[in-house]
């Protein structure tokens, strides 16, 4: 396989690190809409919303830098932002049980993440690689579908999560899709050359943004938030210190904690794999512990923060995995925490441009999952099992009635297909082990 341009412990030139970090900031700025949507759903006032955003940015910046440090977080580039796996859970709890119910349940999930941090790295071998591949594939497919929706149906990203369904479709906007289509074509074209591949996403998104601004396809739905904040402000935290407990959400919280842990393990595993290194279990354990700590600390702030699962897709496209980028990313997030208006202005990136970048990111994750699965040498019985798992998981996205049914019954999961794939794979592999055909 083509060697990576910057491996995990390689230190690129400062300007390269800076540009890479900017690429990730620009690419994942759209996740700031999640706390905005949450605030809207929980009916927080503008001041509380501003505090929520500030808290998310501050904690994300600190956590990202901690992950980059080998002693604290294992030494990986794992950018942190508003948590995708926890978003649907927090939204569901907030809507149905109130603000005060969020903290204790997310705390509990974080505690279980500590447990998973101790257990999961002990798991190694072919089965771990295959499970990681399944997880990565479902993440990539989910991201890809999100990207297509944003590409053709530009709107607030959070609407996807609020409606809880992939089929939240209102209308097609061809004119607004043009910047996105151009962005996707530029990413593909820049992928040709090794030189420009490093910053392909950034260049493509900037070009698409310029076209979007010229065509007046900039989203305005969050304009009132942008107007309400200032350019400069000290970060101020939104802390909710009163709490209520609800036993009915115990299992969902633990499951979401497990998924968040598995995502961290997946990302660290694939980074080692891509850099042609054996997974370092002690580093992975530190990353998992830090991930649990990040969730625990951010649980008091309503919107937990966690690593961005799709970030590895962008790392694959740019072929750069250097952990030093994490420091620059963290610093930039802290700057955004002190410049709230600038942070919200990043939400003005045309949605179709974001969509195109997400499609490219999702496609790369799917591709790497295919590599990881090693279908050429997969034993026949496990091959059948994984075929069943993947197809049934994809089927929960492609069959509208099934997707609606699942989203209706599991509204607290951001990506039910991913969870289904994990559970199904686990069950079928256990049955195969009992039958004695796990390695046939």
């Amino acid at each position, binding site marked *: *396989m*083509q060697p990576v341009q910057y491996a995990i412990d390689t230190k690129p030139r400062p300007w390269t690190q800076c540009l890479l970090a900017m690429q990730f900031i620009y690419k994942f700025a759209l996740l700031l809409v999640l706390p905005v949507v949450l605030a809207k759903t929980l009916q927080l006032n503008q001041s509380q919303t501003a505090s929520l955003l500030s808290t998310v940015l501050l904690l994300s910046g600190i956590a990202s830098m901690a992950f980059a440090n080998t002693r604290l977080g294992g030494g990986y580039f794992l950018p942190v932002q508003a948590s995708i796996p926890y978003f649907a859970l927090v939204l569901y709890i907030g809507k149905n049980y109130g603000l005060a119910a969020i903290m204790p349940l997310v705390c509990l999930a974080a505690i279980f993440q500590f447990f998973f941090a101790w257990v999961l790295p002990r798991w190694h071998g072919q089965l771990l690689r295959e499970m990681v591949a399944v997880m990565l594939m479902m993440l*990539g*497919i989910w991201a*890809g*579908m999100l*990207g*297509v*929706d944003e590409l*053709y*149906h530009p709107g607030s990203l959070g609407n996807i999560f609020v409606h809880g369904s*992939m*089929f939240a*479709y209102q*209308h*097609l906007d*061809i004119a607004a899709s043009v910047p996105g289509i151009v962005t*996707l074509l530029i990413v*593909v*074209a820049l*992928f*040709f*050359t*090794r030189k420009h*591949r490093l910053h392909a996403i950034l260049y493509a998104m900037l070009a698409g943004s310029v076209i979007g601004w010229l065509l007046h396809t900039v989203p305005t739905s969050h304009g009132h938030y942008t107007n309400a904040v200032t350019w400069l402000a000290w970060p101020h935290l939104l802390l909710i210190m009163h709490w209520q407990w609800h036993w009915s959400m115990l299992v969902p919280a633990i499951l979401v904690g497990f998924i968040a842990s598995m995502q961290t393990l997946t990302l660290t595993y694939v980074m080692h794999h891509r850099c042609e290194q054996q997974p370092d279990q002690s580093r992975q354990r530190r990353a998992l512990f830090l991930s649990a700590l990040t969730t625990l600390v951010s649980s008091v702030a309503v919107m937990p923060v966690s690593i961005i699962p799709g970030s590895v897709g962008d790392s694959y496209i740019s072929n750069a995995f250097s952990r030093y980028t994490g420091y620059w990313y963290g610093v930039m997030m802290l700057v955004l925490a002190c410049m709230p208006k600038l942070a919200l202005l990043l939400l003005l990136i045309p949605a179709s441009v974001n969509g195109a970048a997400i*499609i490219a990111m*999702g*496609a*790369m994750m*799917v*591709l790497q999952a*295919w*590599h990881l*699965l090693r*279908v*050429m040498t*997969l034993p026949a*019985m496990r*091959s*059948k*099992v*994984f*075929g*069943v798992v*993947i*197809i*049934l998981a*994809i*089927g929960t*996205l*492609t*069959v509208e*009635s*099934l*997707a609606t*049914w699942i989203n209706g019954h599991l509204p607290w999961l951001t990506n039910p297909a991913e969870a289904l794939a994990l559970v199904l794979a686990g069950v*079928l592999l256990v049955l*195969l082990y009992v*039958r004695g*055909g796990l390695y046939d």
Partner: protein
Amino acid sequence: MTKLRRANNLLYGFNERPGFWTTIVLSLQFMLFPSVSLVFPILLVSHAHVDPITAASVISISMMVIAVVTVWQSLALRRGGSGLFFSPSNAPPYLAPSLAAVSIGGLPLVFAMTMFAGVVQIIFSQVLRWIQDYFPTEIAGLVLLLIAVELATVGLAQYHQAYVATHFTGHFSGERALLLLLPIVLVLGLSIYGPKLLRLYAVVIAVVVSYIVFLSAGAMDPNDWHIITTAQWFFVPHMSIGHWHFDPALMIPFALGGIICGFKLVGSVVAIQNIQFEDHDGHDPRQIRRANMIDGFGTLLAGFLGSMGLNVSSSLVASSVAERVSARVLAYPLATIFFLASLCPKFSMMFVYLPKPIIAGILVPLGCSLFLSSLKMLLKHAKTAYSRFTLAIAFILGLSQNVYPAIYKDMPHIVHLFAGSSIAIAAIFALLANALYLHVPRKQRSADV
């Protein structure tokens, strides 16, 4: 030229002959797959509101043409065939244009446009050799990957329809849940966890057992059962030769249908060729051309006699690949069964009106096994980082058509013509990306994988 070695895990190759009873059982098993798609002409005639004789004739003619084309494909290359065990079935790419045609001009329009689509596919089969570089083998893998997803999607949708039907009629219970899950549990259980002998016949065992259980439990749809029991034992179909009407406005959708079927067939042929030999890289273009041409003639013949367009049965190919069975001698008993069934409506109705859970139990496992075998083909032939990346994007875009059909339906008419199916979207993107790559000077390309 290095002689290719027979693949170790191949059960029956092109020119091999299974035992007599194995041939019969395998033929019955393989018959199930094209039979499922006979639901398409049933949909067509229900939209056409024609008399029962005409309706039954359309279905019977489909089966006759399936029999003829199956035998023709199986003939050796030197005898005018392609040497492949391929059975066609009524093709999904033709369903939407056929339904549109029947609402505009009735069955005569459907038949004429179907003949046109057949001609397009025949021409496509002959020009493919000049555009081969623009249609590399890995795109065939991509096409099959999306077919696998479509098979599973249709199967799971059948399950959900069956669940809803029992739930809303108030008959849903634990017993019904067991009935719903029985076919798929049997197929998956036997094919993954069963003894080696039963794995080969998993589908036919599951169908027979499930059908018996459904009949015993009274779980068949009463309307479907009434149709089966009142169907005639013997019937000569009425052929609509000469009753045609051509409309230029429908040329593009039917032409696209023909081209998509052509692409799909290429992927299917390559999949079958690849299971024959160890380390087989590439494909036999002459066999592909011939198979494509025969497939096109099948559609032409279907339109000529009075039925819907045909294309190689994806589910049969998936089963062949999964079971590593490609003996072309199986074509003869299979064709005989189809021909006799075409004259016996009662027998054919038993397959047309298979209970939905049984259809799902066939399609979903097939989609599962085809997915990984297509992935193997795709990764084996896609040698560069760029081609793999663009194929992955094409896969995402193609899959999105299944997830967001409403978005694609709302597209401008000219785009919708090319974006009417997941395979079309993915194939067009992959072809364009590949064409772009071919025109970039080598020194400007990134280092390959």
